[in-house]
């Protein structure tokens, strides 16, 4: 127990110390009246807004955004893996899809989002679409690159054993691609939160992005900050979930690397 605590402080101690210092300075600047509260609310004011709006934030807006993030990420995961694996198995598919993938990422998200609103209206699906567009790219690329990377000697060895392509895929290429795929997933899950928020900004009736936009219209900076704080916290938590899965899954794959 004691060693765990020691390791934790060694890993994160400095970071939390810096956070505490920063928040203290921030609080002090605002209290001293150097910046007006509607530009930069004090940390205690943000906390106050969080507590005051807790029913609205935690009961309505946070679940709404989380649902969009999870559905969008789920689609990205399924689509990304499917496209990545498909491109790995078929060179023609790769030649057709890869340019489209790159093009999909060069289209400005803000510009294309109104089209999604046009198509899907103010429903959850317009936000899911934005989330998908932003999050599936890192999954496709990391899956495809991961499956392609290395393992040539292993592949030859398995071929001499009489293994077919599916066996080589299952026994060699998937395990070797896992680190890359999981890196892609970590990026994608964080992007998903961004995607859902952007989707909500452009038109929604609930969600943390919608809430922060409405509050910024009312010049309630403390509430905007409270929503941002929750969004960031959501991103961190989702990232940690994937990191946890990664640690469990890669315990043996990462041996000898």
């Amino acid at each position, binding site marked *: 127990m004691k060693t765990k605590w020691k390791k934790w402080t060694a890993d994160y101690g400095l970071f939390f110390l810096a956070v505490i210092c920063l928040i203290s300075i921030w609080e002090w600047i605002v209290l001293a009246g150097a910046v007006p509260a509607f530009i930069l609310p004090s940390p205690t004011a943000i906390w106050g807004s969080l507590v005051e709006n807790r029913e609205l934030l935690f009961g309505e807006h946070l679940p709404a955004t989380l649902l969009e993030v999870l559905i969008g990420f789920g689609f990205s995961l399924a689509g990304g893996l499917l496209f990545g694996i498909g491109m790995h198995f078929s060179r023609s598919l790769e030649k057709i899809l890869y340019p489209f993938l790159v093009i999909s990422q060069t289209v400005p998200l803000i510009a294309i989002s109104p089209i999604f609103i046009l198509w899907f209206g103010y429903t959850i699906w317009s936000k899911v679409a934005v989330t998908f567009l932003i999050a599936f790219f890192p999954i496709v690329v990391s899956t495809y690159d991961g499956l392609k990377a290395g393992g040539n000697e292993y592949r030859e060895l*398995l*071929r*001499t*054993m009489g293994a077919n392509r599916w066996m080589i895929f299952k026994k060699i290429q998937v395990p070797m691609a896992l680190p890359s795929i999981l890196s892609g997933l970590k990026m994608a899950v964080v992007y998903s939160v961004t995607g859902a928020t952007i989707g909500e900004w452009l038109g929604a009736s609930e969600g943390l992005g919608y809430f922060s936009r409405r509050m910024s219209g009312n010049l309630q900076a403390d509430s905007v900050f409270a929503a941002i704080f929750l969004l960031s916290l959501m991103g961190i938590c989702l990232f940690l979930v994937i990191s946890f899965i990664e640690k469990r899954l890669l315990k043996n794959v990462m041996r000898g690397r």
Partner: protein
Amino acid sequence: MRGAIGLSDTLMLSIHDLTYAFQGNRPIFQKINLTVNPGEFVSVIGSSGSGKSTLFKLITGLLEPDQGKIGINGDFSGGRLGKVGYMPQKDLLLPWRPVLDNVLLPLEVRGKKGNLAEAREWLSRFGLSDYENAFPDELSGGMRQRAAFLRTMMTGKDLLLLDEPFGALDALTKRKMHSWLLGLWEDLQKTVLFITHDLEEAILLSDRIYLIGDGNVQEWKVNLPRPRNSEQIYQPAFIELRKELERLIHHEN
């Protein structure tokens, strides 16, 4: 020679007028012939770049010859993948699998259920019984090579191609591996084609040696009775054989 153990008289491996060139280069092999009898231990010696590993890739079926025929156990029909046991130069144990699972891999990829009891029996003969749940990065170099060798055995093929299996080991470990292999050889009931740089190793282990160089091969018989042990390298007869082989190599160059 070892017909008593039930291996047939058909040639285990016959290579007939084999020619092979990497694209746009001059041929690495020019019409070479090479045979291995059932139960024989045959070494292939040659300098780096003489094409030893390429020869193995041709035999396993990873590469196809430009001209000539390769037959495994009398079968010249092509499609050699999955017909011989191949042990590459690097051990290529899957780092995420414990030793037992690595050893069972050849059965697994062909969709067969491995016989655990048999695998464990072999693990103990290979001195690995205490390590069946260990991961490759926890093993010493010698143990890794033995595990890779056992994996090659578990393919169940009669002909095993071993590409410099002891090349990366230190002298002492190598010596131990020789004793171990010589002690086990009669029981294995396998046919081995073995690549090495090490003349001493080749003489000690082999029934015959093929010298590869300049696209040709030359055959040399090892007149050393079996069973052998690794102490024999100090005997005058052995040293005389070694001198003879070296003369042959210099003569060829």
